[in-house]
């Protein structure tokens, strides 16, 4: 038991990070499952982190309420910018969301209340392991239900062929806005959780690099099911720990992983269809 205590004391933050990154990967999975490549999730995470940290520090709100508001705040922003932004598609959407992310970062950098580049420090430790576990479980359950619902099928239809979906009578704009807003909510909650176990937040954590990291997790794991993002986020979080000895070349491996996965595993690591094919082949050989 003492061994476990030592282990937990040492690695709890790492485990927390895995959980928070899983939430982030699921948030971008949601928008990707509707065919939207949005690079705004890091900014949404930042909005959630800053709003929640300020509520805790300045107003002393209770943690559940802080978490909820941490999700609602970016969702409101997403609703506001969603209508004009989501008219764009493909690379234009990616560029617009990237620009939005930069605007958010620069705004936070120049505001007095956010502490500018010095960030906010002294955020109390509120996040506990079960918070993350419960919220992650809830998100997975919710998204799994969503996938099998009418909404999920509409997302799928839009992703496969937007024009056809529109012709089938699906209200494409509304479903896109739903995916975008829900995704921002999850990212915001993840940001709020992260802020309350790392004691400190600063604008640089929510920039372009963070947006790419979140995307990498989902692409690496694969977006054909919910398991993909979970697998991808765990690997991306733990990989640097395992690759410590590579020093400066560590991020080289991250980049290489991204390229290789895109080239050779277009559906990501977790690809049920590929597994079935392998399995089927093996069976065929036996017979």
């Amino acid at each position, binding site marked *: 038991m003492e061994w476990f205590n030592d282990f937990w*004391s040492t690695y709890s*933050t790492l485990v927390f990070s895995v959980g928070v990154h899983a939430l982030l990967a699921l948030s971008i999975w949601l928008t990707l499952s509707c065919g939207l490549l949005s690079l705004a999730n890091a900014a949404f995470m930042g909005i959630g982190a800053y709003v929640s940290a300020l509520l805790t520090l300045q107003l002393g709100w209770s943690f559940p309420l802080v978490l909820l508001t941490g999700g609602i705040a970016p969702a409101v922003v997403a609703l506001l910018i969603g209508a004009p932004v989501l008219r764009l598609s493909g690379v234009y959407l990616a560029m617009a969301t990237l620009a939005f992310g930069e605007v958010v970062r620069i705004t936070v950098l120049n505001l007095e209340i956010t502490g500018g580049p010095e960030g906010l420090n002294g955020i109390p*430790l509120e996040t506990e392991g079960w918070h993350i576990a419960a919220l992650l479980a809830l998100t997975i359950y919710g998204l799994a239900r969503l996938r099998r619902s009418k909404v999920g099928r509409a997302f799928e239809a839009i992703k496969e062929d937007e024009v056809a979906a529109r012709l089938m009578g699906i209200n494409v704009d509304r479903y896109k806005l739903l995916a975008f807003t829900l995704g921002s909510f999850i990212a915001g909650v993840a940001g709020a959780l992260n802020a309350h176990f790392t004691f400190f937040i600063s604008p640089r954590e929510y920039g372009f690099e963070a947006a790419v990291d979140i995307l990498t997790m989902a692409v690496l794991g694969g977006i054909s099911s919910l398991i993909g993002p979970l697998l991808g986020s765990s690997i991306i979080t733990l990989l640097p720990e395992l690759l410590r000895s590579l020093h400066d070349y*560590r991020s080289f491996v991250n980049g290489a992983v991204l390229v290789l996965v895109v080239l050779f595993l277009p559906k990501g690591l977790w690809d049920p269809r590929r597994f079935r094919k392998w399995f089927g082949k093996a069976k065929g050989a036996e017979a």
Partner: protein
Amino acid sequence: MRFMPKSIALISALACAGVAQAADIKIGIAEALTGGAAQYGVAIRNGFQLAADEINAKGGINGNKIALVIEDEQAKKEEGINVFKKLIFQDKVLMIFGPTLSNSFFAAGPVANAAKTVVFGTSVTANGITDIGPYTFRNSVMESDVLPITVATATKHYKLQKVAVIYGNDDAFTKSGYDVFKKVLEEQKLPVTTTETYVKGDVDFKAQLTKIKGSNPDAIVCSCLAEEAANIMLQARGLGIKAPFIGGNGFNSPKLFEISKLAGEGTFVGSPWSNTNPAPANKAFVAAYQQKFGSEPNQFAAQGYDALHIAAAALKDVKLSGDIAADREALKNALPKATINGATGPFKFRPAQTKTGKPGGWDADQKPFIYIVKGGKFTLYDSK
């Protein structure tokens, strides 16, 4: 999950081969050894290694050798926390030096403070660092102790009437330096003609400098990192600006003149350390550093080197019991009284003035050196 790090293996090897009956004092070093802040982190680590070698060569502290457990915190906040937790709960070190940047300190410091373990910063100058709690210490001199003297000296020397200001507004270090400059300029009633900003990665400062030139200041106050500052100096001279510069801690790097050559003539800078300080402790440090690492030491190495000597001075008065919690507490109680005469001159601690009124940690109580730049070199300023 993680394989046994090399440092632990090394320490166990040392422990086996070590002096009989005397125990090793494990001290954690968490600095940014890779990534953008590595240029500071590596120098600091070198300073620690040099000091540890010296202390161990003289028989250690009360017969106990110092064993450094060195970890890379990459200047990332999560990594800082992970490394701190590993050092505290797994390696069970007596105390931790680091992290390199204030950002990481704000994230990792509370972990050490909550675990009742001394955390000692050697390069963290931000406000509020020692507000974290009574287990936080630093020997890094804050800008608010240096800049008033720098500005006053420069004002007297150049008979300044008005100055322009330029700073990096997306970097915690340069922004907090600017905040101090702003306060100092107000206090010393020196009017500011214009305040300009830039962001990290900017390399073209001509728009801002043209504006500064138009405002015709007597000097340019610059809260910038050395490399940015050097480019700003070069571009300012390129635009025909003749006014001298006044710099913060970011100027304290040989890089400044490697790049700016003679563009920085007449610049005023304050620093906690001077490589030309003729005090014997400093001369010995500079010589030993050159011999061990084959390069010139800088301020960060000097502060790391002094920090370990400060801890060693405190540990002389601590009777180690082997109970790690009790030993950590004893060190925390002994450290505030420690004084040394080191590479950075005479050093002692003073209690931090916290914003909240709660008991805080301990800041450096040290006088800075004021330099003027002559012939592309920092020379100690002589008011005569």
